[in-house]
């Protein structure tokens, strides 16, 4: 279409007609005047009526278009979704509705469970995409001042960013006390900013070292317990012509941040009570040590440098390109969803605790995990808070979540139950992974400090990891560059950097 109109500029009209006729299928034929003209003898009046009708039809279509986007809001929820947009069925149409955005694979079941158990409130759930996609939409709705759901699934590392914009409601007086004992201190810290509680914790990501028993047997190695052993083992496998030992991925800054914490680093200090003050220690000795260590592994070609979670990477995992996968408790669910553990690699997976820097003083780390936050656009925050704390909190939903390894629940009632502890995880060939690896890691986890700079920090860290993987800079230089980059952003955003 575009091409015909553009062509008018190049050559004159008659030329176009000859050429388009010759081009045949490739270009829409430009109509000649005879075709456009009304058949002879048509009364002028008819033509005029025709013209008016056409114009009106156009105008009508326009109105229809603009009306469609607005979205009716007849349900008491602040969101742009009317009840008819729900992906789930509302069980009790008379009750007020709270809108919810979430992307758990079993969201529908979880929401149905909630709606059946509650008469006084119903959840209207929409899946607007996972992770970044959903955050971009939420962010846009926040900036626009309307269109956000009442309750939003948010990963812990995003909470501070949204909180700083006043997009989230403090849940401290909205039911926090009732469920306080259901979660560990670390779990609450991850959803807190300063003294405020900005989310109901649902699931976490205690980390372990997932490894392939077939590769470990082939090269006669056992799971390393320290990073020193990790490197020595990786070298041994490589010298014997084996695969990479792990991967250091530029697109997983949250994973690399967890590795920082594993060495006792405290990248940020942030308390919104001290208005505008922030501590940034991205070139601390601990972080430099971690980055130097990994840049060393990359340089010696002991680890892969591909982006994670891409089809390419998954193919590599199935293929046995990596002896280990340092990841969180939710990884088996994700990997199985992507087809890992079904073919030739079935029954080869096992898990072990993360390697440590100082085995006498082990540090448990966490990657990922989500919460339900109440958006400040919620018209009824109390009701929304009830949903945030109540949805995905019942036994049936939690059981479905952890038995299918969709989530690693943070609710201590589940964590402490014998059933959960002794569960023989099929993906790990019946290994009691919860008892051996993940529950101890979750219990020992102290929480991280997230800041409103999180988004920018991740983007900046990705750049530095890419530079390390490219062999352009050392780990130490990367840490310095990262510090400089993030500090200048923080200052530009009005923070006082300590």
């Amino acid at each position, binding site marked *: 279409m575009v*091409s015909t109109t*553009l*062509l008018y*500029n*190049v*050559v*004159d009209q008659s*030329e*176009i007609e*000859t*050429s*388009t006729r*010759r*081009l*045949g299928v*490739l*270009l829409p034929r430009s109509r000649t005047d005879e075709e456009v*003209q009304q058949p002879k003898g048509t009364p*002028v009046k008819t*033509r*005029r009526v025709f*013209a*008016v009708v056409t*114009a009106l039809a*156009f*105008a009508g279509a*326009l109105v229809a278009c*603009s009306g469609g986007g607005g979205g009716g809001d007849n349900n008491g929820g602040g969101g742009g979704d009317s009840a008819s947009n729900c992906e789930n069925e509302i069980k009790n149409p008379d009750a007020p509705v709270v809108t919810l955005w979430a992307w758990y694979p079993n969201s529908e079941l979880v929401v149905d469970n909630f709606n059946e158990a509650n008469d006084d409130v119903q959840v209207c759930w929409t899946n607007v995409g996972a992770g970044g996609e959903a*955050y*971009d939409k939420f*962010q*846009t709705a*926040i*900036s626009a001042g309307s269109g956000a759901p009442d309750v939003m699934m948010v990963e812990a590392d995003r909470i501070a*960013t949204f909180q*700083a*914009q006043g997009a989230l409601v403090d849940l401290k007086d909205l039911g926090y006390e009732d469920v306080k004992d259901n979660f560990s201190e670390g779990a609450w810290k991850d959803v807190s900013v300063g003294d405020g509680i900005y989310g109901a914790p649902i699931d976490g990501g205690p980390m372990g070292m997932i490894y392939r028993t077939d590769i470990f047997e082939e090269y006669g190695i056992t799971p390393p317990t320290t990073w020193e052993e990790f490197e020595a083992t990786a070298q041994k496998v490589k010298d014997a012509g084996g695969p990479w030992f792990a991967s250091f991925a*530029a*697109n997983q800054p949250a994973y690399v941040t967890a590795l920082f914490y594993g060495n006792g680093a405290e990248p940020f200090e942030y308390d919104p009570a001290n208005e*505008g003050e922030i501590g940034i220690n991205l070139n601390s000795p601990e972080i430099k040590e971690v980055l130097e260590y990994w840049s060393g592994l990359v340089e010696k070609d002991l680890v892969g*440098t591909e*982006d994670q979670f*891409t*089809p*390419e990477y998954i*193919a*590599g995992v199935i293929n046995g390109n990596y002896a280990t996968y340092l990841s969180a408790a939710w990884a088996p669910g994700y990997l199985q969803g992507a087809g890992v553990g079904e073919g030739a690699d079935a029954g080869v997976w096992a898990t072990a605790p993360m390697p440590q820097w100082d085995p006498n003083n082990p540090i448990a780390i966490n990657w990922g995990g989500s919460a339900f936050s109440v958006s400040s656009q919620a018209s009824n925050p109390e009701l929304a808070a009830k949903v945030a704390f109540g949805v995905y909190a019942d036994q049936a939903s939690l059981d479905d979540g952890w038995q299918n390894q969709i989530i690693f629940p943070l609710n201590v009632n589940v964590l402490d139950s014998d059933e959960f502890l002794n569960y023989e995880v099929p993906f790990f060939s019946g290994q009691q992974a919860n008892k051996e690896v993940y529950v101890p890691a979750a219990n020992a986890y102290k929480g991280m400090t997230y800041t409103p*700079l999180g*988004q*920018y920090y991740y*983007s900046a860290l*990705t750049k530095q*990891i*890419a530079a390390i*993987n*490219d062999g352009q800079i050392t780990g130490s230089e990367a840490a310095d560059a990262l510090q400089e980059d993030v500090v200048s952003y923080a200052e*530009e*955003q*009005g*923070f006082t950097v300590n």
Partner: protein
Amino acid sequence: MTASTASPMTKKGHRRSTTARQNLFGWLFVGPFGIIFLALLVLPIGFALYLSLFQKSLIGGTRFVLFGNYAKAFTDPSFLDGVWFVISFSLVLIPLQMAVSLAIALILDILITRFARFSRLMIFMPYAIPTVIGALMWGFLYSDNFGPLAELFGIFGAQAPDFLSRSLIFWGLLNIVTWQWAGYYMIILYAALQGIDPTLYEAARIDGASQWQIVLRIKIPLLTPALLLILVFALIGTLQFFNEPKILQQLAAGAIPDDFTPNMYAYQQAFSLANQNYGAAISFALGAVVFVCVYIFLFATRKRGSFLS
């Protein structure tokens, strides 16, 4: 447009009301377009311009800074590196793309077999594939595990180049864009070639011109306006580079950072970092860069006589 509707109505005395009616119909016809144009183009641009005059920070809120954001953009290494990238990308891409499409158009113009028609369609085809799908497809073709490259190079015992790595992403993207657009430009050139009067060739042949001389002395000079048009389109399109890198970022976040091109940087600022103001300023700054580049180019080629004047 309105002339044919009312031309038979020229009775004396009715003239004035006829003109009014003509105007009315004119407006009715223009109306739908006008509304869309105002609502979806003029208004958003005006609003973006307004936004770009404010500075928003996480602490301290929003304040009026006039052109502060623009001053910042033109000293921001992320923006400047992005601009430099798209300019250098254009410098390689556009000549390559034009050479490829011109060569194909000239060959297809000479051939009149059925095969030529089929080739024309096939070469045009990539343009009909949505950018997103094209980029995803090439992402797979470049893949070490799924793509043909690894096997192809494996035959010779060589390691396949990784076009999604930091060092080769430039060429990886170059290939995708050329593949997608060369066919489209070829059609424009081909159409223009069809418009050339064949008697010119006849006269040239009678004068003893060879096929090469016809191409170099007649066809290419007469194609100049079309070539200039392509060049300007390609320049504007490439300076606004967004789709392909944004899609490939899913596969190669390390090689394609968030500030890879100015448009991606504007997207990051507006939608990930909640800084619509700076995002808007970057967009306008990019607009200025595009304007300057196109102006320089048009000024340099002003004697060739062209489509815009």
